[in-house]
């Protein structure tokens, strides 16, 4: 399959052509948001991070922001720093510029305050806006795609219908030479042995098991039963009883392709095929990690129904619950409830999802995009100091 995308200097292909206005820290978030608001094609990535973080926790923030800037859905980048934060704007801009795209940076303390930084930032952003508008879509192969596989607000139809559809789509994309990323380490608890069997080497399988063990140990250290948070109250109302049941349904999103590797949060896959990324089960942070890892498109299954989108990548919603589809059609792109009703098969719905992905890659807006849903959140390993 083919799509019309934006070829970037590093050879990757975007399906969107955004200007990312990235605050290096929470202190620059307001200025970044105001610049993006007033510039055509610009989106801000407001976040609470970037300062008073230490060690690996700071590394996660830096790697995530750098990966988001480098994502091929972004045509140009403006990094806004306050000046004194842990994530230095110039370092971040330098890292993003390795992708070859135009990357500018601005320091509020050097500009002389909010108004001066906004004015200067708006001038730069205006220029970037016109510049990226000249980039035309050209034909690209589906092998250029990195697909993020997400689920949220699951119920029992997720594991029975919508997640197997994701699995079908992931397998088909892998056959076409593309890459897919499964995530949410918490939602492997109780199912990790099934996925580990598909690892291409024993080391990769062992690393996956170790990631899950570390996640479970972290939760257990709280001294409580995970239930109520995993599964959530909505999961339980939908019929999911235990984290094991949720996890076993969750991994159907990964289809049956061999597991090529295990990625850190925000890390890009080193090759093609099916990968797992270490993220929390929280949907927004999970999507952020996969888009930072280079995913251009997110497919998202939901049984209970969820409206979430993402600032830089289209999110295609699929439900396996026919009642939810009727109830929340304004948020959900694809009805896989036909599988539960017995009128369509998993491959039939899978082919519909592939056709939708093709259209969305060509520029069709998803419902989340049309509604300007731009949920954004970065995973944290520990508290700030």
């Amino acid at each position, binding site marked *: 399959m083919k799509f019309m995308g934006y070829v970037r200097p590093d050879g990757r292909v975007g399906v969107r052509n955004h200007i990312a206005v990235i605050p290096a820290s929470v202190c620059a978030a307001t200025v970044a948001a105001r610049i993006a608001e007033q510039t055509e094609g610009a989106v801000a990535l407001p976040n609470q991070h970037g300062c008073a973080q230490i060690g690996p926790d700071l590394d996660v923030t830096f790697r995530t922001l750098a990966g988001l800037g480098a994502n091929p859905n972004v045509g140009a980048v403006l990094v806004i720093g306050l000046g004194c934060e842990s994530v230095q704007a110039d370092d971040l801009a330098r890292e993003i510029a390795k992708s070859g795209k135009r990357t500018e940076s601005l320091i509020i303390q050097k500009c002389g305050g909010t108004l001066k930084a906004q004015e200067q930032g708006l001038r730069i952003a205006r220029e970037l806006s016109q510049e990226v508008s000249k980039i035309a879509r050209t034909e690209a192969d589906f092998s250029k795609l990195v697909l993020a596989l997400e689920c949220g607000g699951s*119920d*029992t*139809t997720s*594991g*029975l219908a919508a997640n197997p559809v994701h699995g079908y789509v992931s397998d088909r994309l892998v056959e076409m030479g593309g890459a897919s990323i499964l995530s949410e380490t918490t939602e492997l*608890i*109780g*199912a990790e042995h*099934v996925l580990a069997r598909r690892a291409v080497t024993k080391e990769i399988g062992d690393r996956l098991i170790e990631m899950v*063990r570390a996640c*479970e*140990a972290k*939760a*257990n*250290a*709280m*001294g*409580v*039963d*995970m*239930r109520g948070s*995993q599964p959530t109250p909505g999961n*339980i109302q*939908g*019929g999911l*009883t*235990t*984290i*094991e*049941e949720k996890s*076993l*349904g969750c991994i159907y999103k990964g289809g049956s392709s061999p597991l090529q590797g295990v990625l850190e949060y925000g890390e890009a896959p080193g090759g093609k095929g099916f990968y797992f990324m270490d993220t929390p089960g929280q949907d927004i942070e999970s999507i952020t990690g996969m888009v930072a890892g280079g995913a251009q498109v997110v497919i998202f299954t939901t*049984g209970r129904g969820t409206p979430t989108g993402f600032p830089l990548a289209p999110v295609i919603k699929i439900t396996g*619950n026919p*009642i939810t589809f009727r109830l929340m059609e304004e948020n959900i792109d694809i009805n896989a409830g036909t599988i*539960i009703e*017995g009128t369509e098969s998993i491959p039939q719905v899978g082919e519909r999802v592939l056709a939708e992905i093709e259209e969305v890659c060509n520029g069709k807006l998803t419902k989340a995009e049309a509604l300007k849903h731009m949920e954004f959140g970065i995973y944290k390993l520990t508290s700030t100091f």
Partner: protein
Amino acid sequence: MKRDALLTNEIDSVATALADLARGQEAAFERGGGVERIVVGEDIPFGHKFALADIAEGATVLKYGEAIGRATAFIGRGMHVHVHNLESMRGRGDLAGQGGGAKK
């Protein structure tokens, strides 16, 4: 054929209701290429599970052919299986001191 419930693996101890099922209703589901029927002993909401055979207290409950937890009480054939009679064996920090943490 109209199915009322779905079995994900032939060795499973539970099936999932594909519609709201009323107490006393006969639910049809496929197993091993054939159609089987079971009378549900209580109302089973859409998407919820019921037992395909008697499950002893403490027994491991299977879905997708894998363990999804253990029964905290005896569960009769056709009865609702959910948080009131099935618990996780994983993510149990509350049991960590009793060796129940990451127990399989």
